[in-house]
Each structure stands twice: as structure tokens, then as C-alpha cells.
């Protein structure tokens, strides 16, 4: 069944792969981007500028999508930022701004989407979490806290809206070969690959496949789950 799917931060990386996978599944796709509109995406995608830290922009983006495509039935909350540094060097603003984008941003888009999903008695919400939300990661206290927070948010939403057939899940990737990762030095990359049981980074499409499945009608009995796509890196941590 073709549905309206929104991927925040769908202009690149994991978000772009999710948007492609949802389009391949026959859904009508909208994406939001903050800095740069994506190039080379299919002409029938609706691309909307939106900073998820701004409630008014979130509302405006949803209104545009509703007018052009209809109410959002599948929400992939993917937009996120990093500001890595050791805690001793991490100012409160660097902690708070990552929480605001990754966790409160997820809350903003989910809250805006869920009212319409309630009326439709159908919805799929998928948050992009991270393996570091459960394992922790030196240098990523802010990021890890935001991703751990998404699990509590997702499970609370799952309970609140279960009676309306809205499912809410988290996909928790490990290291993924995206632009975000290209900046990492070869030594660090080798160390990370060595730590992953499967011995390599994930391709964005491998994360997107799990997202597309959770968005499908076939996944209607899965809610409140955290699905790891991490090559085995997080085994035992959740």
C-alpha cells in the first residue's frame, strides 16, 4: 500500500538511503533538509527546508507536506547532529544543543505527526537511534544521551498510541559508511572495524532496509522495539 512517508534529514547519508528504500517500496516520499537541498533525487520527491530545532519550521514543513501529498503516515525521524568532545571540554551548550536537535527534535516531529496518525488510525514512527545510546562512547556523552533518550521517547509513544494502531520503533545503527564517517582517520576506522564482529562498517542501505521493513504493513505487530543494525557491535548491551 502506497503511503505518505517523511524522512527528516533525508538529503544525505542514512536519511537519503531511507528515503530511497521507502520510495522503492512504493511510498510517496517527502524529505526535510537543513543546510543543503539534495541534488539528483527523483523529481517526485517533495523536498522541504526544515530545522527540527525550530517548532515553527517543523509545523510549516508538515503543513506543506499535508497540502502537497496528504497527512504523513510514515515518519522517519533521522535528522541529527554530533558535537563530539570529552566531557571535561564539553560546555553545557554543546550538550544541550545536541539534545535539542536529536531528542527534542524527534519529539517535535513525532508530536506534529501523531495527531493526524491518530485520526487515520494508522501510523509508523521510526527513530534513528545509535548503538552508542546503550553502550556509551567516550567523546559522545551528548550524542549518546540523546540517542538513549529516543528509546524512552519511542516506547512512551508506543504505549500512548498503541490503541490507534500507531507503531513506534527505534533502529539503532553502529558505524555506517556516510559522509559523517569519511572524516575519520584510517587508524580510527581500522580500530572501529576491528571492534565490529562483522568486521566492517554498514552501508546506509543496510540501515534503510530495517527502517523500510518497520514502516511496512507487515511490521504491524512490532512496536517499542529497538532494532540493532550494528554488525553485532552492541550485542549484550541492550
Amino acid at each position: 500500500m502506497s503511503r505518505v512517508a517523511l524522512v527528516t534529514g533525508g538529503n544525505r547519508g542514512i536519511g537519503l538511503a531511507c528515503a530511497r528504500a521507502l520510495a522503492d517500496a512504493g511510498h510517496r516520499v517527502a524529505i526535510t533538509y537543513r543546510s543543503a537541498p539534495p541534488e539528483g533525487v527523483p523529481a517526485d520527491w517533495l523536498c522541504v527546508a526544515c530545522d527540527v530545532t525550530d517548532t515553527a519550521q517543523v509545523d510549516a514543513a508538515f503543513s506543506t507536506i499535508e497540502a502537497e501529498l496528504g497527512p504523513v503516515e510514515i515518519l522517519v525521524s533521522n535528522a541529527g547532529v554530533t558535537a563530539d568532545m570529552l566531557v571535561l571540554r564539553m560546555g553545557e551548550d554543546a550538550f544541550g544543543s545536541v539534545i535539542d536537535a536529536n531528542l527534542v527534535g524527534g519529539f517535535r516531529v513525532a508530536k506534529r505527526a501523531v495527531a493526524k496518525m491518530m485520526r487515520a488510525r494508522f501510523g509508523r514512527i521510526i527513530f534513528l537511534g545509535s548503538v552508542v545510546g546503550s553502550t556509551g562512547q567516550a567523546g559522545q556523552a551528548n550524542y549518546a544521551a540523546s540517542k538513549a533518550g529516543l528509546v524512552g521517547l519511542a516506547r512512551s509513544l508506543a504505549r500512548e498510541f498503541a490503541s490507534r494502531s500507531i507503531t513506534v520503533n527505534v533502529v539503532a545503527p553502529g558505524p555506517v559508511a556516510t559522509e559523517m564517517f569519511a572524516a575519520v582517520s584510517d587508524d580510527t576506522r581500522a580500530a572501529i572495524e576491528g571492534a565490529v564482529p562483522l568486521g566492517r562498517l554498514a552501508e546506509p542501505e543496510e540501515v534503510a532496509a530495517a527502517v523500510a521493513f518497520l514502516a511496512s504493513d507487515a511490521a504491524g505487530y512490532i512496536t517499542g522495539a529497538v532494532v540493532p543494525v550494528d554488525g553485532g557491535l552492541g550485542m549484550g548491551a541492550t
Partner: protein
Amino acid sequence: MSDDPFERFKKCAVELLNVQPDQVTKEARFGDDLDADSLDLVELVMALEEEFDVTVDESELEGIETVGQAFDLINAKL
């Protein structure tokens, strides 16, 4: 549209709770008589806030069980 506040209230309730107009009496209980759950009530309150251009605080909803109680809460703000 009718200007009578209760008629406007009733219209919102009929639309959101999917009930018949004659079911929406002031004595009707949301849970037992109108089969509304907590999410339905939140939706109704949000619709009423928009319809009457009022704001209802969460704490004011404590103990509201009947249509009459909810209407009085809104009507007192008009």
C-alpha cells in the same frame, strides 16, 4: 452555525467521538456512555480549545467525567 455554546460543544463532541447528537447530554459520561478513552478526550479538548479560542490547563481536566462538567469548564472561560 449555532451561536449557542452548548450546540457548538456538542458539534465538536459528535465529530471527534463519533457519537450521535442526542447522546451528548450534560449527564452523559465520557467513558461509560460515549465510549471515549483518554486519547479521545485529549483530542476533544484540543478541538474545543480551537473552537472556543480558550486554553485549558492539564490540571483543570482532573475529575472531569461528564459532558456537563467539561462544558462548564469551557463555558466559564468564555
